[in-house]
């Protein structure tokens, strides 16, 4: 992997001032993706699944080809297991509102982990409250890894849903999705995986961990915003009610009744985000070209370098395990609020996130209100990490030892 060559593919990275270290929020886009969207609007802009002329059919084919591409990317059995949505948040809400709301009853239990992003937490909280079910949390160990022993006790025959993030957006830990999947299924629960951080950063093979549903977002994996994926097995999708009715999703309509298209098209009412789908396809092409194994290894090693350097500084607290698992490194500088630190970095054009990262319960569980988070992707380099590390030192001088 030649990072310097890769960086040339990203127009925004040509700004040499900037160290963009907030990839867990959203990734930058390679020219290939930007061009694909441009090309679509300039030459291919026809509606899908409804027009009878030739170019529209070509657009429909391009749209459906991406469905297959997404299926291949996660090793799904068939393209029909893929539903296009607006993103992870919409996908997870669909599962909660249109599946769990009907299937979780009074006295049932929903198990999540304390590491969940609000998008994989609040929808379940609502289902639990509405249906009189109990929401239970798998805790983490001191090093930030999921407490498997606790998980074994929490997941029981009462559990109807287990919803787990594959990669924590704060700690950068990769959760044991295979083991938890087995526990869920042994107990007859449905297994929902939030792959928002996993899809961009690790190879995902649904044949290995067998989620019933899985969600991810295009914009975190080089694709455009406003496009995402809900994966579901045919067995799971058959039990989901239709979130929306309208155009594109029907077979026949009379004045009194209608029949719907098969899965997955019945879940995509209305004109979809065609440009988004085309852009996502280009993003997957780009990722495949580099290879998800390579991406995973590179980000993990770079994060290890960053975390090791930060840990050498006794004023810095790094959260999560000593051995880094992905490109995400959350930390704090003792005695300094994360927002002041982030502003200091901002003025040096180093962009990190500060706050609770939409995972308030986890950040509180770490004993703080806010952390800094550097999230590295495969186009980041050591130079950018070094800039961050030296700015942290300068910052300590400035805020903590006078100036």
């Amino acid at each position, binding site marked *: 992997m030649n990072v310097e060559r890769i960086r040339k593919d990203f127009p925004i990275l040509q700004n040499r001032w900037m160290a963009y270290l907030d990839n867990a929020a959203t990734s930058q886009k390679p020219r290939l993706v930007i061009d694909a969207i441009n090309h679509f609007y300039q030459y291919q802009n026809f509606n899908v699944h409804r027009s009878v002329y030739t170019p529209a059919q070509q657009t429909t084919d391009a749209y459906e080809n991406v469905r297959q591409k997404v299926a291949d990317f996660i090793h799904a059995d068939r393209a029909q297991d893929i539903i296009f949505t607006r993103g992870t948040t919409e996908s997870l809400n669909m599962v909660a509102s249109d599946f769990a709301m009907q299937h979780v009853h009074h006295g049932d239990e929903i198990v999540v982990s304390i590491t969940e992003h609000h998008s994989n937490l609040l929808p379940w909280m609502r289902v639990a409250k509405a249906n009189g079910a109990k929401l239970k949390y798998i805790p983490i160990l001191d090093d930030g890894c999921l407490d498997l022993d606790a998980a074994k006790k929490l997941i029981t025959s009462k559990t109807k849903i287990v919803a787990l993030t594959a990669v924590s957006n704060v700690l950068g830990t990769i959760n044991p999705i295979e083991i938890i999947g087995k526990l869920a299924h042994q107990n007859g629960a449905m297994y929902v995986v939030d792959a928002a951080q996993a899809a961009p950063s690790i190879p995902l093979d649904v044949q290995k961990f067998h989620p019933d549903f899985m969600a991810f977002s295009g914009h975190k994996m080089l694709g455009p915003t406003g496009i995402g994926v809900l994966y579901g097995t045919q067995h799971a999708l058959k039990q989901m009610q239709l979130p929306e009715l309208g155009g594109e999703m029907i077979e026949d309509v009379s004045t009194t009744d209608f029949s719907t298209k098969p899965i997955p098209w019945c879940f995509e009412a209305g004109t979809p985000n065609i440009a988004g789908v085309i852009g996502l396809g280009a993003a997957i092409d780009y990722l495949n070209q580099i290879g998800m194994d390579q991406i995973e290894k590179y980000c993990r090693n770079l994060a290890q370098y960053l975390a090791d350097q930060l840990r050498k500084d006794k004023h810095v607290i790094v959260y999560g395990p000593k051995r880094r698992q992905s490109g995400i490194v959350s930390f704090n500088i003792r005695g300094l609020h994360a*927002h*002041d630190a982030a502003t200091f970095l*901002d*003025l040096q054009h180093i962009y990190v996130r500060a706050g609770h990262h939409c995972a308030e319960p986890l950040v509180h569980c770490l004993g703080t*209100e*806010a952390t800094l988070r550097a999230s590295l992707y495969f186009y980041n380099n050591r130079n950018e990490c070094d800039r961050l590390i030296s700015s942290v030192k300068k910052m300590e001088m*400035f*805020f903590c030892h006078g100036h």
Partner: protein
Amino acid sequence: MDIRSLYQDIILDNASHPQFQKRLSGTRIQKVLVNNPTCGDRLVINGIYQHHKLEAIYFHINGCIISKASTNMMAHLVIHHSIKQIDDLVLSFSKLMTNEDFANKDKLGDALSLSSVAKLPVRIKCAMLPWKGIYQLLHREVHHEN
């Protein structure tokens, strides 16, 4: 922008040496909790408003330097003032944050040092937090009295 124009000594001082830390006693204490959901900043303000002025104030804050400094400065400015005067201070401070002109700039005292925050839109809500808090505290009570 230079980091020193944002984090001036006077701001660092106000943040690290908060006054008004003595809890109030009595029956006429008004309380308010305000927070910035995106930062996790949380501010509790207690006050006693009687005889047409804010006679006592106490605050407890968990937050960044900007919000801490702004809170201490706000407390200094509002104590012993009437609602009308405090409202005018709140309005003036919010104008400072949006770069609008207002009369008698000097009335904001130390808080004028926060003017650079106006250039950092993401931090304005940190500086505004205590001002929002004092406004809510007083107006909620006026509402009750009516």
